[in-house]
């Protein structure tokens, strides 16, 4: 079992390098989320987006990204809210081990 990773006051990883799938599971549990294949699909997409663009997408960008990469059925705010409650952009970035997205109002 991995030691619990250091988090900031809002629950984001302090050291982004510490992320692995086990850490993601721990972070998800804190949000009362059991990670399913549908969650992992979004998490992996977010991580590869961050690797390329060094940016955690805000809500609208996340929806457009999912729409472009995974199709219009999933690129919808209802679909993402069902998976990642609260603000999907914030919750998903947190579990994916990315910084808090800017411009989330």
């Amino acid at each position, binding site marked *: 079992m991995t030691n619990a990773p250091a988090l900031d006051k809002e629950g984001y990883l302090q050291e982004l390098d510490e992320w692995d799938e086990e850490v993601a599971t721990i972070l998800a549990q804190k949000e009362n989320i059991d990670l399913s294949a549908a969650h992992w699909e979004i998490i992996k997409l977010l991580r590869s987006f961050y690797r*390329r*663009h*060094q*940016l955690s*997408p*805000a*809500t*609208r*960008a996340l929806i*457009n*990204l999912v729409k*472009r990469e995974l199709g219009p059925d999933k690129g919808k705010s209802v679909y993402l809210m069902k998976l990642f409650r609260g603000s999907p952009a914030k919750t998903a970035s947190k579990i994916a081990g990315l910084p808090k997205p*800017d*411009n*989330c*109002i």
Partner: protein
Amino acid sequence: MNKSHSFTFITRSAPYGSNRPNLCLDTALAASVFEQQVNYIFMEDGVYQLLKNQDAGSINSKTLGNILETLNLYGVENIYICADAMEERNLSADDLVISAKLISNDEFKTILLDSNTVFNL
């Protein structure tokens, strides 16, 4: 609140030498969250922000070109590049990370006249 407000952002500085390109981008992304019309215009040295093969890890910065590729995901769809700026710098569309409409100064003027608020960085 006026829902059809149009913002124009003119970005005319090269990346990394100052924070001006980032100020401009951050403000435009904030405007896009409000679902307003956002025009983004690369002018003068601003076109250097779009050059391919940037890797700013070497100076401990984020690579601006990679970030700018995401503008359309944020709903910033009206992206323009000053044709004069490209010509003066011997650049062609192939040198850039995104494809955007090249505009003449007259087209530029029309966009400005039609905008409600202009940020010029």
